[in-house]
Every structure is written in structure tokens, then in C-alpha cells.
């Protein structure tokens, strides 16, 4: 019952008026900033960090956490409405979410993202509150070989995301990994695929790629369709704004499974949270009874990755807080903010600053609740965006893209780059190559390479290290089984082509 005593301590702190105010400011700012393309959690926190220097320590961290998941939520909103994802996770949500929006079901899609996020967040909070220290110890057993095998599994899961041939998905993952090697290599300092330009030394910015491949390519596609553009039905009443009973029933198990996957992967710094949405989506695509609708507006395709993403976002605080080790750039900033406020993260933080630790945990829950309350009334407003005529909407989207990208590094080359990548994205649409798997490849590329090279150094050149270590072996077995099932499925489908393709336009 220590858990409840601890949570009570936390709620004492988090329910204080000032903590709630900072939390509310954080999620509100985060949601509205997250809606702007190009401005993801990292940029938002970077911009807003100095504001928190003047707040009291607990409130400052609560506000940063609020900004963090507010931004993620705002990112999902714009990904669904306009197919403008800013992160890999929101690109997964956009696959089915944007299809739903086109079918006039943006309302249920948006409400479901909120509900699934809330559910995922709530479960993950209990995990964080109850098991943070042992989970952090478990995460330490993940060393280079385990990370490598985990990433291989995640990448193959991403390849399953696509409709059509599995090999196309694989090729897109490989392309993403290849693009991820552009730039100066970390160990030897050798510039790779830079074509002698200084601009490419730092590699391609993820945001530039995702905005180009999704947002800009979507604008080009819509304009090219001209009069044939899908008419979005926006004359919807209140009743159509909220998910139906059937939607809720269909989404429950996917959300629960997604949450489980996310909560587990979140504790593995770096690779884990990035993979979570992809693995959750891929799993649903295998197990859902509605799997044929995936990619055409299946609500399960939103529920599972959203639950996974938000659960992972919460549990990714575990290594940061209990070991004092940041998992990614965002956590590194959070950790820095802790230290600026005179808190030393590390194993002792729970004993030394219990009101801070548990206050933060409780504020996760309150932040999620605020998101829910804040966004339900806003759903109607967000949907109004879709009723703006496209001839007015698209110049505004282009302006947001241009300014959002330029705000990242104030580098005009990034604008030219996003334009070029947008054209490539349009080509991908024409060739029916879905871009989401490419994104995961791009994110994981440096991690995959580093962990592979380290594993080989540690094993002194023996590749058997990946099957000799039990955790690594489990991931490889899961990967091989998954790929086997997919190949079996497509072999069966190729023997009976008519049934599989009957419903396609």
C-alpha cells in the first residue's frame, strides 16, 4: 500500500493551485505549439525552457512535462486533420487518422486519440509509480546487442505497416536507414553521401524529411487532383463528432495492447519510444479482426499507436528519474532543467525529494486529464479547419511549413531541401510507396549502426553475440516468426488473388 501513500503525497503536490496552473499552461501551450508543423516536442521545450527557469522547481518540471505531452497531442491533431505529422509516432497515427478525416470522421478520430492517450497515460503512470526502480534495473540489462536486435524487430514491424508487397516496406525501411547515414560519421569523422556540400555534414534533419514526405507531398497531391479532390464531408452534427459505441468497443483491446507495448518499450532509452507506435500498429494489423480495413480509416489503427505512444512517453521518464540517465534529447533537456533547479537526478531522488518525484508522477495524470478536458470541446473547432476551402487552406499550410522549418535552425537551405523532399514524396505517392517505414529507418539508423559496431567490438568480432544473449535472442526469434507469418500470408494471398483485391477501388 506504499504505492497509494506515495501517490497521495504526489497528488498533494500536484493538486496545489500553482502546480495545476503550471500544468495547465504547459499542456495548453504544448497543444497549440504542437499543431504547428515542424515544431515538435524538442523544439517546443527548447524554446520554452527559459520561461521555466523562473518558476519554482517542482512547478517548472511539471510545466515542462505538460509541454511535452501537450505537444505530442497537438502533433497528432494536425497529423490527422491535414496529414502533417511532425514526429514518427504521429506519422503512424496519420495513416488511418487522415483517412478517417477524409471520410468525415475526423471527430471520432480526434476524440479517440485523446481517449487512447489518456488510457495509455493512466496505465503507464501506475507502472511508473509502482515499479520505477526495478524497471530501471531491468533496463540496464539492455546493452548494445539487445538494442540492436530490438531495433531489427522494430524495423521489420515498420515494414509490415504498408499495404501491398512486404518487400516494398522493407525497401522503404532500408532507404530510411540509408538516408540516416548521410553526414559526418561519428567515429572516423568521414563525411558520407554529402556530395561535398557542407550543408549535409550534419545529416538530414528529421523534421525536414517528415514535413516534406508527408505534409508537402500531400499538398502537391491534392493540388494535382484538382477538381477530382476528395470532398470532405464537414457538415457534421454533434452526434458524429464523438465515437460510436462500436468505435469504443473496437478500440478497447487495441488500446490496451498498445499501452502494454508502449509501457514496456518506453523504459528502453532512445530506441524504445520511437519503435513503440510502429510495433503497436503492426501487431494490430496481424491480430485485429478488422485488419483488412487498416490503412483505409480503421479506428484501431489510431487507438493502438496512440496508447503506445503516450504510455511510452510516460515510462520513458523512468530511466531519466531513477538512474539519472537521459534516454533522448528531450529527456536530456528535462534533466538539465532538474539540475538548473538544484535537483540532482539519480537513484536518490526518490528518497531525497519525494514530494518532487511523486508530485511529477501525479501531475502526469492531471496533465492527461487536462488534455482530455481541453481537447474535447476543441474537437469541433479543429474540424472547422477542414471546412475552409482548399484554395485558401493550402497557401496557409505552405506558409506554416515554410516558417516552421525555417524556425528550426534559421537555415534557408532547409526550405530548398523540404521542397525537394516534397517532390520525392509526391513521387512515392505515385509509386505507391508508403513513407512511414522510411521514417523509422531514418530515426534508428545512427542508433543501429552504433550498437552494431559496439556489439562487434565487445564480442571481439564474433556475430554469435546476438544469439548467445537471451534477451537479444528473444527479439530475433520474434522477428523471424513475424516475418514468417507475413510471408506465409502473402503466399496464401497470391494463390487466391481475387479475394484479397476485391474491395480495392
Amino acid at each position, binding site marked *: 500500500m506504499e504505492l497509494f501513500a506515495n501517490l497521495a503525497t504526489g497528488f498533494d503536490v500536484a493538486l496545489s493551485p500553482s502546480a495545476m496552473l503550471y500544468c495547465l499552461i504547459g499542456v495548453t501551450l504544448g497543444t497549440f505549439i504542437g499543431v504547428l508543423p515542424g515544431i515538435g516536442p524538442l523544439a517546443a521545450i527548447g524554446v520554452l525552457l527559459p520561461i521555466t527557469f523562473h518558476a519554482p522547481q517542482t512547478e517548472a518540471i511539471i510545466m515542462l512535462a505538460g509541454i511535452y505531452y501537450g505537444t505530442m497531442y497537438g502533433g497528432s491533431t494536425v497529423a490527422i486533420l491535414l496529414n502533417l505529422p511532425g514526429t514518427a509516432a504521429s506519422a503512424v497515427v496519420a495513416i488511418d487518422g487522415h483517412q478517417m478525416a477524409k471520410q468525415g470522421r475526423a471527430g471520432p478520430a480526434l476524440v479517440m486519440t485523446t481517449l487512447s492517450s489518456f488510457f495509455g497515460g493512466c496505465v503507464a503512470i501506475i507502472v511508473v509509480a509502482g515499479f520505477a526502480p526495478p524497471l530501471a534495473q531491468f533496463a540496464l540489462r539492455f546493452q548494445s546487442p539487445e538494442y540492436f536486435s530490438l531495433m531489427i524487430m522494430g524495423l521489420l514491424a515498420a515494414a509490415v505497416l504498408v499495404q501491398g508487397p512486404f518487400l516494398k516496406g522493407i525497401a522503404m525501411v*532500408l532507404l530510411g536507414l540509408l538516408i540516416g547515414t548521410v553526414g559526418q560519421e561519428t567515429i572516423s569523422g568521414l563525411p558520407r553521401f554529402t556530395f561535398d556540400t557542407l550543408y549535409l555534414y550534419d545529416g538530414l534533419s528529421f523534421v525536414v524529411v517528415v514535413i516534406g514526405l508527408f505534409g508537402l507531398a500531400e499538398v502537391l497531391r491534392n493540388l*494535382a487532383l484538382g477538381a477530382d479532390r476528395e470532398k470532405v464531408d464537414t457538415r457534421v452534427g454533434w452526434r458524429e463528432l464523438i465515437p460510436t459505441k462500436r468505435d469504443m468497443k473496437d478500440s478497447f483491446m487495441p488500446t490496451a495492447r498498445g499501452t502494454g507495448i508502449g509501457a514496456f518499450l518506453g523504459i528502453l532509452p532512445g530506441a524504445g519510444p520511437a519503435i513503440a507506435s510502429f510495433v503497436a500498429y503492426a501487431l494490430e494489423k496481424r491480430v485485429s479482426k478488422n485488419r483488412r480495413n487498416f490503412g483505409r480509416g480503421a479506428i484501431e489503427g489510431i487507438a493502438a499507436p496512440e496508447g503506445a505512444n503516450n504510455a511510452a512517453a510516460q515510462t520513458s521518464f523512468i530511466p531519466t528519474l531513477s538512474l539519472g540517465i537521459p534516454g533522448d534529447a528531450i529527456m536530456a533537456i528535462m534533466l538539465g532543467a532538474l539540475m538548473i533547479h538544484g535537483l540532482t537526478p539519480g537513484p536518490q531522488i526518490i528518497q531525497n525529494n519525494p514530494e518532487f518525484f511523486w508530485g511529477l508522477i501525479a501531475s502526469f495524470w492531471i496533465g492527461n486529464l487536462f488534455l482530455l478536458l481541453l481537447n474535447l470541446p476543441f474537437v469541433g473547432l479543429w474540424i472547422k479547419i477542414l471546412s475552409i476551402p482548399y484554395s485558401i487552406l493550402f497557401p496557409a499550410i505552405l506558409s506554416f511549413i515554410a516558417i516552421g522549418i525555417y524556425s528550426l535552425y534559421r537555415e534557408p537551405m532547409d*526550405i530548398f531541401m523540404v521542397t525537394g523532399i516534397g517532390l520525392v514524396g509526391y513521387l512515392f505517392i505515385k509509386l505507391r510507396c508508403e513513407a512511414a517505414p522510411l521514417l523509422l529507418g531514418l530515426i534508428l539508423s545512427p542508433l543501429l549502426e552504433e550498437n552494431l559496431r559496439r556489439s562487434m567490438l565487445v564480442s571481439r568480432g564474433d556475430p554469435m553475440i546476438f544469439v548467445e544473449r537471451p534477451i537479444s535472442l528473444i527479439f530475433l526469434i520474434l522477428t523471424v516468426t513475424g516475418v514468417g507469418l507475413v510471408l506465409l500470408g502473402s503466399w496464401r494471398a497470391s494463390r487466391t488473388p481475387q479475394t484479397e483485391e476485391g474491395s480495392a477501388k
Partner: protein
Amino acid sequence: MNRDDPQTDLLAAAMFMVIGAGAIWIALDYPVGTLRRLGPGALPMGLGVLLLASGLGLAMQALLRARLDPQWQGKPLINLPKLPSIHVIRSTVCVVAGLGLFGLLVRPAGLFLATATLVLVSSRAEAGTPILGSLALAVVIPAACVGIFVYGIGLPFRVWP
């Protein structure tokens, strides 16, 4: 067009094979190292080979599918895409030119004029938009953007030249 269209798959396969081969060719200059000490060329080389192989596999799969499916009997499989229509060329050029001008102007001319130029040029993508409408958008949208990004979030941009 259905989604397992072998013609599209063949074109995609060709693209993957070209990129894979290109990556291998460039990566030949990078040291691959030893199994124990993998060099900077190891991953690009491996990825290039795998990409080439996937492209090949995809092409073979598409050819096999076409042979099994009566729908494709006797039809040409290599079908270069049609030239884009005037409408598509116009919209693409307007968007690309608008963004390009934004990139060129944003430093010297400031955020407002760069965004106004982007809106003015790109809104010509749609043949039906009246020029007055474009001009109106070119005032309203930049003003809103400046309001949101500069005064709302406080990004340190220069608004005017």
C-alpha cells in the same frame, strides 16, 4: 488501378535498384573495416546491397504476379507514366517556386514579405483563384503567421527587411 498493380511495382523496384546501386558505388570509397572493427563503409555498403536485392525481389514478385493473373495477360508490363497534365505542372511549379522564393527572401526581406511572396505565388496553383483573392491572402496569411510565430511563441525572427 488496384494496389497490387505490377506496373507500378516494377517502376518502384527500378527506383530501389537504382538507389541501391548508387549507394554501393559511392560506398566503395568508404573503408568497410573488419568484422571486429566495422568501418564507416560497412553499413552503407550493406544497406545498398540489401536495397538492390529488395528491388530485385520486388520486380520478380511483380512479374510473377502478372503471369499468374489473367487480367494482365498480353498487356505490356513496362509502362512509362504519362506526361503530367498542364494543370499538374502549373500547380507543382507554383508551389516549388513559392517555397524557393521564400527561402531566397526570408533572410534579406524578412518574414512578412517572404511569406507574402510565398502565398501570392503558390496560390496561383489553382486556375480558378482570382488575382484579387491571391492578393488578399498574401496580406492576411503573413499577418496571421507573424502574429502566431513572432508575437505568440516569441520566435526571434526579423519581420521586416
